[in-house]
């Protein structure tokens, strides 16, 4: 091409902006892929990574998004949920972005998806070996409740020095006669690392133990990746006389599909203040309603 042709071409058609497939450049993907493999090899350990700036806000799922974009390909079907719902604004926004940069099928059906990006829930339906669940993590360091410095918590993990967190739970019981941690309950992974499961409800914690799918966790702002491989021991930390307890929904059921063994959203009726309940996992609820 000579200069004249180029200039003509340049002036005639302003080319549309071009993004890489899945937005990230190849070297960024390589780095994240290397770190994912190490995270899988050391379950529950937080692997530091460079974390690129994404066009959505830091803290809005950029870690999960970078994981998803590094693993996803044309053969995948993607599901994105926020608080269990496929239609919440943030889930929609993330899906819109992913579709813009890689044209792959998107589903609401948990069973159909090969990659599921989630914020704060594990779907109700059982996940399988061929599926990957990607968690968006706001604060990956569970030991932050007792120690704010990364330098110190890193050493505590190295030495498996978890006396601080046990003491925290113990004092909690002394004060409240109960463990006050709601979502994001600390778990012990593969009998070695205490890990933040991201702010999922306690209801979802037992699902992590010997889960059949790979669980990947990404914290973009804090620049950490961690993982739980399938069939891995994951136990909530608890005392002999003070057991871990999931949220209590006894006597309550979903007002739409009548499910009782699921995590429920509490809905306040505007006028009377009366409460009703609905499945947090909206696609599961819809599926049941269609039966």
């Amino acid at each position, binding site marked *: *091409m*000579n*200069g*004249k042709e*180029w*200039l003509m071409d*340049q002036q005639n058609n302003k080319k549309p902006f071009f993004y890489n497939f899945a937005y990230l450049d190849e070297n960024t993907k390589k780095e994240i892929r290397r770190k994912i493999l190490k995270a899988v090899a050391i379950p529950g350990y937080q692997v530091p990574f460079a974390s690129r700036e994404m066009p959505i806000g830091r803290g809005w799922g950029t870690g999960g998004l970078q994981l998803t974009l590094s693993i996803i390909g044309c053969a995948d079907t993607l599901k994105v949920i926020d608080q269990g719902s496929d239609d919440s604004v943030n889930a929609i926004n993330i899906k819109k972005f992913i579709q813009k940069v890689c044209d792959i099928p998107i589903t609401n059906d948990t069973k159909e998806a090969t990659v599921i990006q989630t914020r704060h829930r594990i779907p109700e339906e059982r996940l399988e070996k061929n599926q990957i669940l990607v968690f968006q993590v706001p604060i990956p360091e569970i030991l932050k409740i007792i120690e704010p410095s990364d330098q110190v918590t890193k050493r505590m993990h190295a030495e498996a020095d978890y006396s601080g967190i046990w003491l925290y739970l113990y004092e909690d019981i002394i004060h409240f006669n109960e463990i006050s941690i709601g979502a994001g309950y600390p778990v012990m992974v593969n009998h070695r690392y205490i890990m933040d499961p991201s702010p999922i409800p306690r209801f979802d914690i037992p699902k992590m133990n010997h889960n059949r799918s790979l669980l990947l966790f990404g914290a973009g702002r804090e620049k950490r990746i961690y993982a739980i491989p399938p069939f891995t021991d994951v136990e909530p930390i608890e005392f002999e006389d003070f057991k871990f307890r999931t949220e209590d929904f006894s006597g309550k059921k979903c007002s739409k599909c009548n499910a009782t063994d699921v995590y429920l959203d509490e809905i306040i009726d505007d006028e009377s203040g009366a409460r009703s309940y609905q499945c947090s996992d909206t696609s599961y609820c819809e599926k049941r309603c269609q039966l």
Partner: protein
Amino acid sequence: MTTLERKKWMQEAWEDLNQKDIEDLYSCIPLEEIQIKKKPIAGLIQMKVIDTFDTEFYMGEVLVTEAEVMYLGQQGYAMILGEDSEKALLLASIDALLNSENYHDLKESPFFHKLEQMILNYKIKRQTEEKIIMQTKVDFKTF
């Protein structure tokens, strides 16, 4: 001015080029004979600096556009600040022209005239700026 000086000045003066200058210069260079080796592409330069402690560090990235051309077997290269393909290609072309052997023939051409004029304008502008800055120098000798 030697070719080297001219190239050096061009690298400074290009920042003053407006759209009209670019069009004028494009119109007086042998565009058909310029082969594009690397189409202008925008990228980032990591800005490396050295502080007073002699520590090298990166102060941030700078957006640049890079282009490469060939003119009669001579390389032409340009990297400019900002994202501007047309400017980058023009600068690469001028670089190739200045490198070429028949640049002596160009000496009487409108291209050369334009170039010299631009460099002169730039020098005058820079000198004026410096003089204005020196007007803000604090003078302690008031007695």
